[in-house]
């Protein structure tokens, strides 16, 4: 059992000798376990389980359709308004759930942070991946709607995974920032729901981003979710909503920037998590 060649590591104020990414790779199994635990626990707890993640987007879709199409009188071109809204709700709900869940993930798992060693990054990351299950369920619902409205996608749907990846990257970036900030400053917990709400208002969920005046389009795209949502619509609705390329590129660059800086901030504050949580 005892290996002759034993690994040696050094503990010092500067941190261990193990590389950050190597550690992350070594703990990949725990990552899947944590994700699996949260998924299992989630669907065991709620009696209506999966039904819940069907009801939420449906109600939101109906509300948005009524408000933006009927009351505000916005046009959706030749796309049925519910479909237009739902195609945007898919990434939006994933994103909003991801940031609310991940921002509290370290606090909710404070046991893990203070009692065992693990690369803490996997805690917010796994809470985001849990949201993918809800995403898949909602996507199933979308397929049903799609058939109902006879809005069949073309080859562009093949690009969907790319936009999903972009959405995941944005969620991870924001999630790393918020989870670390919440540990350091508990007040941030109260800011997060507000932040999600603001994000919703400035994201083109209930309307097409073409309603934004031309001169402001590029500025509007500084919100990473604009690129993701536009991408989803383009991929799912067979290009009936045009893709605003400079906007997508700007969203992408900003997403990567948030991801990179979030990762950096997280790694910098990680070392004091156990002391302050």
């Amino acid at each position, binding site marked *: 059992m005892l290996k002759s060649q*034993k690994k040696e590591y050094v*503990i*010092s104020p500067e941190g261990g000798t193990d590389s950050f990414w190597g550690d992350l790779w070594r703990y990949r199994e725990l990552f899947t376990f944590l994700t699996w*635990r949260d998924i*299992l626990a989630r669907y065991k707890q709620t009696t209506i389980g999966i039904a819940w993640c069907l009801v939420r987007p449906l109600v939101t879709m109906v509300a948005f359709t009524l408000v933006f199409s009927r009351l505000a009188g916005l046009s959706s071109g030749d796309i049925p308004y519910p479909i237009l809204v739902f195609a945007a709700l898919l990434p939006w709900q994933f994103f909003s759930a991801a940031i609310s869940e991940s921002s509290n993930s370290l606090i909710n798992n404070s046991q893990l*942070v203070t009692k065992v*060693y*693990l690369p803490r990054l996997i805690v917010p990351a796994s809470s985001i991946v849990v949201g993918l299950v809800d995403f898949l369920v909602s996507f199933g619902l979308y397929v049903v709607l799609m058939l109902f409205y006879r809005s069949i996608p073309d080859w562009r749907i093949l690009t969907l995974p790319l936009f999903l990846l972009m959405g995941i990257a944005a969620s991870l970036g924001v999630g790393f920032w918020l989870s670390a900030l919440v540990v*350091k400053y508990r007040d941030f917990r109260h800011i997060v729901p507000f932040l999600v709400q603001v994000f919703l208002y400035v994201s083109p969920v209930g309307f097409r981003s073409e309603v934004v005046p031309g001169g402001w389009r590029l500025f509007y795209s500084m919100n990473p979710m604009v690129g993701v949502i536009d991408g989803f619509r383009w991929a799912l609705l067979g290009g009936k909503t045009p893709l605003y390329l400079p906007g997508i590129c700007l969203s992408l660059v900003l997403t990567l920037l948030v991801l990179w800086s979030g990762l950096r901030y997280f790694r910098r504050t990680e070392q004091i998590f*156990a002391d302050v949580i």
Partner: protein
Amino acid sequence: MTAIRVDGICKKYELGHLRRRPGASLREAITDSFRSAGRILTSRGRTQDGQPPSDEFWALSDVSFQVEESERVGIIGRNGSGKSTLLKILSRITRPTGGRAIIRGRAASLLEVGTGFHWELTGRENIFLNGAILGMSRAEIRKRFDEIVEFSGVGSFLDTPVKRYSSGMYVRLAFSVAVHLDSDILFVDEVLAVGDAEFQKKCLWKMGEMGREGRTILFVSHNMNAIEQLCGKCILLEKGRLVMQSTEVRQVIDEYLSGTDRKGTPSSWINSGGEYSNPWFTPRSLSITDSFGVPLPMPVCNDAEMYVQIEGEVHQFNPALKIGYAIYSEEGFPMYQSYHTDRPEAEWPRLTSGKWVLRGRIPAKILNEGAYRIELMGSLHNIQWLIGPKGRAPEVILRVERGLSNSPYWTNRRPGVIAPMIDWSAQPVNHL
């Protein structure tokens, strides 16, 4: 071969910023930065002797030792002496402020029983989850699954959610996962404090077994019996410093239990500043004194007049406030608990806001010869702990020697948890 080499490890906590409340608030961070800017500008905020105000707390200072491969080392010391911090640093949970440590081999730590257990999941699912959290791979867990289940004795409840388990079953399952870890080095913190006596014995035996298999164990406990049985070497920490280490385990334990620190003053606890802050009651000191409040030199006679004295400040009157202490034997066995609210309500001292000295007499002629650990406890009755029962409370050591009796037939320690003096009567009868 050296398995662990610790070289001058230090750990500093910033009390003002971190310890005061879990998670500083944003406003505090902002006002603090203004305040420190103000301090720099006005060069105030320094005490007379030029030292910066002490909102630092050294949990560990300059601790060095070595552990050889397959050695089992016990770490003892009063709460707050840095035992847990040391294990946390060695388990890489937190970083030291200074010094370094080298660890050879795969290390696993067991600082808490059942870390990451989820109430909604079944026993089986939790075994896999907890195993993964403690660093086992899926294949390893599968290999040892049957062993784990057998050791825990919860076999028939394997597919029941652990929320339906009794607390005993829960602890047994959690511990079973942990003792089946395949690591070269194991850090264990006070986990034996939970679980029933039978299972504790089984766990101790298992840890002994692990040691015989050549594993290195670093073991923190308040159970001196367990330390003595299990460890071949013992380290004593006092206020973050290593004050004694020896392979004569009993000697180290005796030093710890003498009730007197290395400088010869009777053991008492004094709040170092920001500890145990809460809106209701902050303890300032805990000591064992005579009726005038003067700390008693240890050891104390069993029939002496002795009091547990708690000084502290009540910030806000609260009728639910309950202050008292728990007393534990050398083996960690709880002897009794006592609170200032134990009598009928009309007789309670009314603790309005202000500074108070509470004194509770330790009954004479009850405690056996030996060493006892007295832990301060404070709570809002049935609402929340202010000074909790789990390893974080201030504590002092009470050492009792002699005074058991004036009888020529009872001069030494007798077997038994307590040694009460009982009145006997005798009447002549003739109908037997």
